């Protein structure tokens, strides 16, 4: 299973962090931040043009590996265990980035910063409960668009004046 998905910039600031491993999720928030910092310190010391895999048993428990990819100012990191294939995980990062690209057209770090919830939507379509759900970026795009449409639809109700909703009891 996939234990975690992380995105951080080259200064170590986390842009997205999602943990699927049951044990990690029970840790307090500070410990999770520590994990992110730990991963960053390992990544930042890697030279260019080397392999994208690392063993990080010390941070995530036994049988943990991570794959990372460096795109411009961002590190995309996937932490997984022995039941995932390494090259397939590398592919998955590719799928994720492609989808983001389609979503935001020429995605850059700022897009990721300002569209926190959309990021999560996209990620939720690809990785679900630690399992890979969808590997075709156009399918993911379709689903994400549907969700955004229903959100927008539900938001349009807010145009109804406050007084009416207040009269009805506010719910």
């Amino acid at each position, binding site marked *: 299973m996939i234990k975690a998905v992380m995105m951080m910039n080259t200064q170590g600031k986390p842009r997205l962090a999602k943990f699927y491993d049951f044990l990690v999720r029970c840790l307090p928030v500070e410990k999770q931040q520590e994990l992110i910092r730990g991963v960053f310190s390992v990544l930042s010391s890697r030279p260019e043009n*080397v392999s994208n895999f690392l063993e990080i048993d010390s941070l995530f428990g036994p049988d943990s590996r991570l794959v990372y990819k460096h795109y411009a100012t961002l590190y995309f990191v996937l932490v997984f265990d022995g039941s995932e294939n390494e090259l*397939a995980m590398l592919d998955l990062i590719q799928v994720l980035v492609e989808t983001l690209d389609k979503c935001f057209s020429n995605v850059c770090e700022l897009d990721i910063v300002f569209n926190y*919830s959309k990021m999560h939507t996209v990620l939720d379509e690809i990785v679900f409960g630690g*399992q890979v759900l969808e590997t075709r970026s156009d399918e993911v795009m379709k689903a994400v668009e*549907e969700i955004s449409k229903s*959100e927008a639809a539900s938001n349009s109700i807010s145009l109804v004046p406050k007084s009416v909703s207040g009269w009805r009891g*506010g719910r």
Partner: protein
Amino acid sequence: MDNLFQRSLEDLIKGFRLQLLGDSSFISRALEEIRREIKATDLSTKSTALHKLSYLAAIHGVDMSWAAFHALEVVSSSRFHHKRIGYQAITQSFHDQTSVLLLITNQLRKDLNSVNEYEVSLALECLSRIGTRDLARDLSPEVFTLLGSSKSFVRKKATGVVLRVFDKYPDAVKVCFKRLVENLETSDPQILSAVVGVFCELASKDPTSCLPLAPEFFKILVESRNNWVLIKLLKIFSKLASVEPRLGRKVAEPICEHMKRTVAKSLVFECVRTVVSSLSDHEAAVKLAVAKIREFLVEDDPNLKYLGLHALSIAAPKHLWAVLENKEAVVKALSDDDPNVKLEALHLLMAMVTEDNVSEISRILMNYALKSDPLFCNEIIISVLSVCSRNAYEIIVDFDWYVSLLGEMARIPHCQRGEEIEHQLIDIGMRVRDARPQLVRVSWALLIDPALLGNMFLHPILSAASWVSGEYVEFAKNPYELVEALVQPRTDLLPPYIRAIYIHSVFKVLVFCLGSYFSAQESSSGSSSTVYESILNLVNVIEIGVWPLSGAYDVEVQERAKNVLGFIGMAKQDIAKKVNLQDNEAEACRVTAFMEDAFSEELGPISANAREKVCVPDGLELEENLGDLEEICGKFLKPVESDSVSCTDKISFSVSKLRIRDQQEASSSTSLPPKESSSLLAEHRKRHGMYYLTSKKNDPDSNGTPNDYPPANDLASEILLDPLDPKRKAKHRKSRPVVVKLDEGGESRITTSQAKTKQESVTDDESLSRDIQSALLVNKKGKEREKCEGNSNLVVVQEEETSRIEKPQNSEKKKKKKKNGERTSRKHRSRRRSEVASSSEQVEIPDLLL
């Protein structure tokens, strides 16, 4: 109204980026705002506040557990936007200890039954990440329904959530497993890959329970062209083949097909990995896999190179020929930029080491170590050390060379493996007699070098060197220089416990020299003045060097220094006398002789099982706890108490006192306990209470008084610990010195970091696998019932029994047996029952596959 002025998440983010206040103050201001807003009754305000809070929690590590109830309120809204925010907050922040977890069940149920598939997916995502046992139990019926839903979007996600549900609530298997298995036959590739993914996880936890599904997996393996599905299937088969070797034969064919046909490197790698780890007996498959590995190794892409080396290292234990074929690639990889690649290459190189090439390979590696960064350098050192010391130095023929290699390692600038080298120096000294001269030579070189004293990583090595020089001083060329090295002023840099070792070695050297001086005096009639001069010099040097330490702060150092100085004081007089010592009455001479004797006993290695080999002497009775001792030895307790009891946490009895006890006392002890001894003991306990173990258990053997004695074995080991004479095994090898090996069975002292222990909660997995097995049997039983003609109770009962005894799969044979079962009369049922009880739980591979 407040909604209009509320800052949205976007505003928050923008504000954060532009602010000049400082991160923490900005965050605390924002938090105050959020706390105010979140209490509002209007759901939009609440949800925006919650949204901001979840952002802060995720990115900046703010704690949001206090907002749990608010999240629940937001989730109950009918608007999709709010629901999303609420669920996101919940999945992020809820964990097993959240108090409001119970309240979410109904909401989840409502959403799981919703028409809108996106609401369903939100609820499923939430369940998959925060699911507890109760939630899993309550919602498994809904999950079951969704597994059969017509919308593939929903079915995919329901499959994903099944894993968590099974993990937390194994009984759900009975309900949902059938649907899961049905989904295996779906044509939608995404659902298939989700299902296969779930089975992969289940198989890793417990392969035997998924074994009955092997035929279905096989079908998909042969037919499917989807790489993701195939990769997961390969992983499943790898796990299954390890429990059922016959599977390997069947599966090797299609795997080879895939390997030859596919373009995708990930699939090739997975095939290779499966073949070398689980199907390593199939020569043809292995050959093909190794050919593919070679293709990986010559690629430029560092990822592929690393993976190729990794696969090779998995293959190495059983197929060393594969590694040898690719030797050049491995050696080239040692100098690669990538640390991963280097490490794998190192391990592969170590796997290739044999008796003949060990010195050559070590030479190459030492050169690399000198040139590399500290991390890799130490990796090299530790791997060389572990390989060479495996199985009591099996590989080493030339110990002189190895000992000098150890000395060389000590001089590598980045060396941090002092303890291991120390251990090996001493170990070789004890086990290999013929290596001792070289050992002393190397140690002397290390001791005399003042530069090494400053490096704290080398201190263990220096302590070993000094011990070796003291112990085997008879091989030293020049004891005088040795002593000079041991007392040099720079040894102040050493920690006290090592200094103590130094001083003791000085003592041994002194005794040796004095002994030889005195014996030379006796044998030759006159004493030459040069010998006299030199011994006097030696003694003086020692005195000058050790004297300052007699006032040292550390007790050990002080004591040993004073011992040495006292000995010198006594010996000096006799040296100065220069008389004819024929009569042997001189005190110093005698004492020296005694000391020499004491030091001459050889210290040898002790087997790990030494203690067990000691047979208990007669008359000594060892009991579980020594609760009876108080009555028996009551009269002895008094003197023990009045003397200053040694302040250890055990009361020490002498062996003689234990042996005095005889059977009659034993029988009478179970009756009335003499109150006198218990009161004495109680008094003693009061006085020295802190040294007693806490009395936790009420042992029926003990006579009601809450006294826990340390378990008998500890006492016995204290009393009976003697170093055993090592068994000497002569090795019949030309010119290889004798290595003393004890029959303990080689335990490697260096545990590789790759030894991982999987800690599985056994009970949970067991119950899960039992459920899966029973679910599968129910499946098959259901199918049988449809095909069976008559449905009588007898048949059903006997079906159950037959299905448990025989193979659980449908086949013609099965039907015949069933008919036989029908014909067998009822009187055989009892026999069958006992058979069922005794039959093992082994599930066999059906005949279809073989």
